[in-house]
């Protein structure tokens, strides 16, 4: 068929559809909703998983986190009470070993995390006192808001200085400028040298005051040498007679790898190295990259589920189109007969009706794409949910709508073409 003739056929199709505006509109509605729901459902799914992935990414995709765990069987032993000293967890030597044996390790960051109350004047706030090294911000991802972080001199001379999170600062110093104030932790005064913001804790969470006095984002950073000398290796917890004593050198080690390629091979190697000295399983290895992969896998499943629900609605729309086209064929039997008498071949009739269905479905698809792009914007605006409209969801939805037009148009169109011209002409 010539191009101009095809254009004429499309033109004719549009004309025939416009003859019954309400009917064509209602028929299109099925496809509009289908396409729109495919796009917006995928956009919402994509947005939700994006947030989870971002959180994991902030942990650092090149980082490996190793945490000390209290061995479960030992813990039950101490349940009987008494002054039992528990000795477990990562050691300074572990850090040194990892640095020297695992290929691709850039830096090993040791952390001691001790729960203590921090006091300034009358404000007493439970915190996590993190003893660490000056390069902590480069590995964990910390924004220095004011002042500075810890420095090498602090570490070397076991200075009583600290950096605190902005969340803590706002609670500890509601009316004062925090810098250069002295806060008291376990009987010792520390000078505040900097305000920092951890990047992987969103602002919103940091600002909420929870009634339990949880030490969620209340971090105090002190030099690890200071931590060792002030708190010692043994940490006492609880009150007499159930005092628990724990001897933990390091609570956490973060290993920074040169690139993501090293990360996955390094994880089992780290376990190998550590297992030689930790036969009681008193540590865990967390690989953010693996979490990320898992999150991506979950996202895929999520997308498939949402996508297929939406695809079903597209299918329903397609059936609606087929239904209407079959009715149209019956209604226009006479017209088909006339066209056949005037020289139309079966193929011409098939094309004519197929074009009409495709115009319906593609037209509906276009409108559906427009609405489908707007709905996620509205969801973001009204429900404050992140949504991402991906180009491929638009492409998929649109091409499915076109395919549905052809698929569901084929039967009515062939039914129309196969009518006997004589019967069709006589049809009342």
């Amino acid at each position, binding site marked *: *068929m*010539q191009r*101009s*003739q095809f254009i*004429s056929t499309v033109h*004719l199709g549009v*004309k*025939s559809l*416009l*003859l019954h505006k309400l009917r064509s509109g209602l028929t299109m509605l099925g496809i509009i909703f289908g396409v729109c729901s495919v796009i917006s459902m995928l956009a919402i799914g994509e947005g939700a998983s994006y947030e989870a992935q971002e959180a994991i990414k902030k942990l650092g995709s090149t980082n490996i986190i190793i945490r000390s765990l209290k061995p479960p069987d030992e813990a039950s032993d101490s349940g009987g009470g008494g002054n039992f000293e528990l000795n477990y967890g990562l050691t300074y030597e572990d850090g040194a070993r990892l640095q020297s044996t695992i290929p691709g390790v850039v830096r090993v960051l040791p952390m001691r995390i001790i729960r203590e109350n921090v006091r300034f004047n009358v404000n007493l706030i439970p915190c996590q006192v993190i003893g660490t090294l000056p390069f902590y911000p480069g590995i964990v991802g910390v924004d220095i808001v004011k002042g500075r972080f810890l420095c090498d001199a602090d570490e070397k001379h076991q200075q009583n200085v600290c950096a605190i999170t902005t969340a803590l600062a706002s609670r500890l110093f509601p009316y004062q400028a925090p810098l250069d104030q002295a806060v008291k932790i376990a009987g010792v005064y520390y000078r505040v040298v900097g305000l920092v913001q951890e990047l992987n804790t969103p602002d919103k969470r940091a600002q909420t005051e929870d009634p339990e006095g949880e030490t969620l984002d209340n971090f105090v950073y002190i030099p690890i040498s200071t931590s060792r000398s002030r708190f010692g290796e043994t940490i006492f917890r609880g009150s007499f007679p159930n005092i628990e004593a724990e001897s933990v050198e390091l609570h956490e080690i973060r290993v920074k790898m040169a690139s993501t390629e090293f990360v996955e091979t390094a994880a089992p190697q780290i376990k190998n190295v550590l297992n030689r000295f930790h036969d009681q399983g008193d540590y865990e290895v967390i690989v953010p990259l693996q979490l990320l992969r898992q999150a991506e896998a979950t996202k895929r499943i999520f997308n498939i589920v949402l996508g297929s629900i939406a695809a079903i609605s597209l299918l329903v729309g397609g059936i609606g189109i087929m239904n209407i086209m079959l009715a149209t064929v019956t209604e226009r039997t*006479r*017209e088909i*007969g*006339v*066209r*056949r*008498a*005037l*020289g*139309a*071949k*079966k*193929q*011409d009739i098939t094309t004519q009706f197929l074009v009409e269905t495709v115009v319906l479905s593609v037209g509906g698809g276009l409108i559906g794409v427009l609405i489908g792009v707007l709905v996620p914007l509205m969801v973001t605006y009204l429900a404050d949910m992140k949504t991402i409209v991906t180009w491929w969801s638009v492409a998929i939805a649109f091409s499915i709508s076109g395919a549905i037009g052809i698929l569901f148009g084929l039967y009515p169109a062939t039914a129309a073409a196969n009518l006997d*011209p*004589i019967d069709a*002409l006589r049809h009342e």
Partner: protein
Amino acid sequence: MKSKSIIRIEEIVKRYVLGGEHEVLALNGVDVSIPEGEYVAIMGPSGSGKSTMLNILGCLDRPTSGRYFLGEQDVSTMPDDDLSEVRGKRIGFIFQSYNLIAQLTVIENIQVPLFYQGQNLKDSYDRCAELAELVGLGDRLHHRPNQLSGGQQQRVAVARSLANDPLMILADEPTGNLDSKTGIEVLNMIGKLNADGKTIVLVTHDNMVAERAHRVLHMKDGKVDRDFRNPPRESSEAKKVA
């Protein structure tokens, strides 16, 4: 009958099978030959086989046996698509109920036969506008059928039947749905077409209509039982009125 026949039907039989066993012999060995430029009326009571005859003449149906030559072509055994082409190129149809396509304008309706022969709508526009002018609807090119009277619609149908410059125009009760005055207008128009050389085959049961033809084929029980010529007076009158 010196001029060559453009329609030659030999021993045409059409048999329908109704509801399994029951058989109807609609045409039972018809022989007809129609020369170019003739104006033929087919008459007969219902059930006489004249509709079947019309369908076969119009290449809408194939005979069970026998041969049908349209022009030089044997169309009696042609496949469906070829028949479509023959209809599109050689036959102009005028129906009792006009059968214009509702969603198309006057000019577009006239263009339909040319469209199916692959002609661009732009290219066929001028010719079709001329045809509309010929039937007196040059000022209604962009009206829809439902904006026209019955007589006007039938005139559009006449123009449409001429669009492909057919060998023959087949008219099935062209005045059946019209009042007598507009009916005469349409008949005059058909008469003028014949005077200009078109071969016309017209199916009717109205004697007044049949009288205008040169020749009447009267059918009964699937056969042509009478084949006679009318006195030649109508064409001159038709010319005057048109």
